[in-house]
């Protein structure tokens, strides 16, 4: 057990104690604390609005255990969404196999320790989701003290199902990876596609859980009957659904209903079912883990044997001097895409952008028999073409910046090879510019597809699609300059697993702050034009004069261009100093 706890401690703290190559003694934390406070304040309204909605849901449903079970399932969905790649990275990508193999520790102990750390990470995510979703629901429902006494059990039990599902998803994925062989690029593509499928499925299922249609009542004419009918329909649907998550239903019953004895019985049943799930997943995953470790340890030898067969190919070495900037970009792209973890992390977030547009389309475009869909109703309004592109710009612009690992960790990505960049006779500005161009280029491909989809699916005019794309490219370039500089200021090196480089990194927080500020700037710049449009279009009935949106987008483009230029200048001015500070 000592070894197990030592390993858990090692793996867990490793995530949060990545070595920074810039001295920590003289680090100023004020800026960092300020950033966190601003972001929390920025996210607080969203969290509060969700909590308030849950509070009312608790009131309306009168603490219905099916609704609570559904909310638990929703929490698990979020835990799964944030945690599935951590399961793959922490448990099934064994970059540290060689380092652990010679230690006098059983493979089972290592596996259990890794699994425990993944579980603990999910407990942390669960705590947040419980506070925002389940707790307000219970307060709204006027739940008894038993509800609050059961919350610690909920905290420990909720992560089990995501861990189970995540592992079940991760195993065939890892097997597929092994079958793909040593082709890193193909591995990255397969992994991203699988991730997309899981996320799309999750969103689709969650959407269908809550969708209600077919009421005879109109919400405006009979709001109370409409809501009551909606809740009944919702609960009926949930009854059919939660049978598949029986442990959640049992947990929900333990929290909300029945006598003391019933509650004890429910919690015991939930614990038993969750333990069973854990046992099943362990039994399934352990042999799989051992196979992955063995393959990893043997892979070097296989590659060397293969290398003997490569003599014929060596006769025609393809060498081309393409210029240093292009070569920096190509090399960075190739090596990232070929690295399973780096590639996956770099693409997974970005490719979700177009997927969310498709999901929005399905959500907004779905209509009851004979009725027009919400999207159809909205798109008729003259103001739709003015407001919708702005909303899309704000949403996609924000997601592009936050999820673009290419631009958030360009220096951390170098890891221990960073010395190489410092020894090359190339200016630091050029190295950073190459990284920013690469990040912007990859992001722009996703943005282009996103813009194409909003034109094709959401009915936004093509010229707004172009305007959004160009504005996003400029904003993205500027934001990437800042995030690159921030990563350069405090990179995390010596990670064995890129997930460790991502954990505890401030870059994501900074990116959220940057994107929030950018959205605020977009809102401030466009609001006067929206008022102008509204005033001159006679309150939505008449299309606004063409030059108003034209001027608005012109201003947004000018602001975006200015932002990109200023951000680049700042990066260029600071690059050399920050580069020299890094001690490799």
């Amino acid at each position, binding site marked *: 057990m000592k070894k197990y706890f030592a390993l858990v401690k090692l793996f867990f703290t490793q995530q949060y104690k990545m070595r920074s190559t*810039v*001295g*920590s*003694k*003289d680090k100023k934390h004020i800026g960092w604390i300020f950033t966190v406070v601003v972001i929390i304040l920025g996210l607080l309204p969203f969290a509060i609005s969700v909590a308030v909605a849950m509070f009312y849901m608790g009131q309306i449903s009168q603490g219905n255990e099916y609704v609570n079970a559904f909310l638990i399932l929703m929490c698990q969905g979020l835990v799964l969404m944030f945690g599935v790649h951590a399961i793959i990275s922490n448990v099934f990508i064994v970059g540290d196999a060689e380092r652990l193999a010679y230690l006098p520790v059983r493979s089972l102990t290592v596996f259990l320790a890794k699994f425990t750390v993944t579980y603990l990470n999910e407990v942390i995510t669960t705590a947040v989701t419980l506070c925002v979703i389940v707790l307000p629901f219970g307060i709204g429902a006027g739940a008894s003290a038993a509800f609050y006494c059961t919350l610690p059990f909920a905290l420990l039990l909720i992560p089990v199902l995501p861990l189970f599902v995540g592992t079940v998803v991760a195993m065939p994925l890892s097997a597929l990876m092994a079958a793909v062989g*040593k082709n*890193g690029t193909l591995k990255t593509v397969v992994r991203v596609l699988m991730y997309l499928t899981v996320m799309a499925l999750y969103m689709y299922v969650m959407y269908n859980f809550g969708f209600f249609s077919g009421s005879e009542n109109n919400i405006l004419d009979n709001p109370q009957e409409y809501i009551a009918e909606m809740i009944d329909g919702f609960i009926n649907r949930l009854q059919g659904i939660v049978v598949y998550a029986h442990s959640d239903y049992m947990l929900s019953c333990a929290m909300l209903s029945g006598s003391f004895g019933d509650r004890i019985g429910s919690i015991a049943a939930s614990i038993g079912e969750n333990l069973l799930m854990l046992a099943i997943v362990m039994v399934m995953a352990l042999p799989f883990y051992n196979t992955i470790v063995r393959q990893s340890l043997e*892979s*070097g030898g*296989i*590659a*060397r044997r*293969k*290398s*003997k067969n*490569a*003599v014929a*190919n*060596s006769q025609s*070495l*393809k*060498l*081309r*001097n*393409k*210029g*240093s900037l292009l*070569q*920096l970009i190509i*090399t960075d792209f*190739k*090596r*990232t895409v*070929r*690295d399973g973890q780096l590639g996956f992390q770099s693409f997974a977030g970005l490719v979700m952008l177009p997927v969310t547009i498709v999901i929005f389309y399905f959500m907004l475009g779905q209509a009851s028999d004979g009725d027009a869909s919400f999207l159809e109703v909205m798109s008729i309004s003259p103001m739709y073409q003015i407001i919708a592109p702005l909303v899309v710009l704000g949403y996609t612009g924000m997601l592009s910046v936050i999820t673009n690992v290419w631009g958030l960790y360009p220096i951390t990505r170098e*890891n*221990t*090879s960073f*010395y*190489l960049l*410092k*020894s*090359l*006779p*190339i*200016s630091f500005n050029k190295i950073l510019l190459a990284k920013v161009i690469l990040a912007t280029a990859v992001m722009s491909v996703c943005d282009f597809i996103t813009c194409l989809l909003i034109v094709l699916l959401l009915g936004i005019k093509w010229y707004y699609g172009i305007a959004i794309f160009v504005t996003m490219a400029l904003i993205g370039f500027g934001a990437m300059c800042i995030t690159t500089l921030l990563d350069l200021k405090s990179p995390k090196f010596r990670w064995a697993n890129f997930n460790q480089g991502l954990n505890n990194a401030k870059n994501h927080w900074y990116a959220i702050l940057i994107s929030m500020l950018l959205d605020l700037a977009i809102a401030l710049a466009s609001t006067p034009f929206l008022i102008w449009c509204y005033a001159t279009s006679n309150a939505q009935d008449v299309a606004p004069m063409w030059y108003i949106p034209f001027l608005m987008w012109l201003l947004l483009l000018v602001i975006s261009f200015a932002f990109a230029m200023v951000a680049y200048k700042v990066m260029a001015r600071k690059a050399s100093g920050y580069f*020299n500070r890094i*001690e*490799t």
Partner: protein
Amino acid sequence: MIRLTDVSKTYKSGVKAVDGLTLQVNDGEIFGFLGPNGAGKSTTIKMITGILSPDGGTVEIDGVNMAEQPIAAKSLIGFVPDNHEIYETLKGTEFLNFVGTMYGVDSAAMAARIDEYATIFDIKSVLPNLISSYSHGMKQKLLMVAALLHQPKVWVLDEPLTGLDPQSAFQLKQIMRKQADMGNTVFFSSHVIDVVEKVCDRIGIIDHGKLVAVDTLDNLRADGNVSLESLFLTITAHDGDKE
């Protein structure tokens, strides 16, 4: 030519790695840099190659000041690090193409030199493979080929013999001598005293960040029968293993 003038480096952790080091390595010379673990060898090499900036003093490569003209100075250096941390997901060829391009070597010259050096070090057959599949020695050889691609005036090698097979070690020594005969400077650190004794024209010994001895081997030997090993152990006798 390498010239270090009163160079010092203290890490942010507070460790003074190099303290007032002054040293000149001439053209056409093979210079062996010795020292116990933690003496400051690698830090000195990192300052010579521009990876670390010294806190004080100047580093000049062939008369070019590293602090004032880092790109020009780095262009003159071919560097073989000791850690072999390179882009594992690139193929050998791609890595060499990358390094060659960074040093401004044209495609034809690059191909010719890769062919020449990869043949000497016997890694030509593995160049189309991913570096992640290379052994420690293969990576070392790849780094040597990469460092020679632009025909550097100054060749800096940090522990170059670690992991090399006897044939490659022999080839390396031959190339070092050839580079020196061409009028270039070869600066290398090593723990293998036999090699230093056989190959080097001059030797420097660093201890606690200070250069405690620098001269030809003959001049260093007070008594003609003293081996370099004995000399090294005597000079650094007070020192414990700190790394």
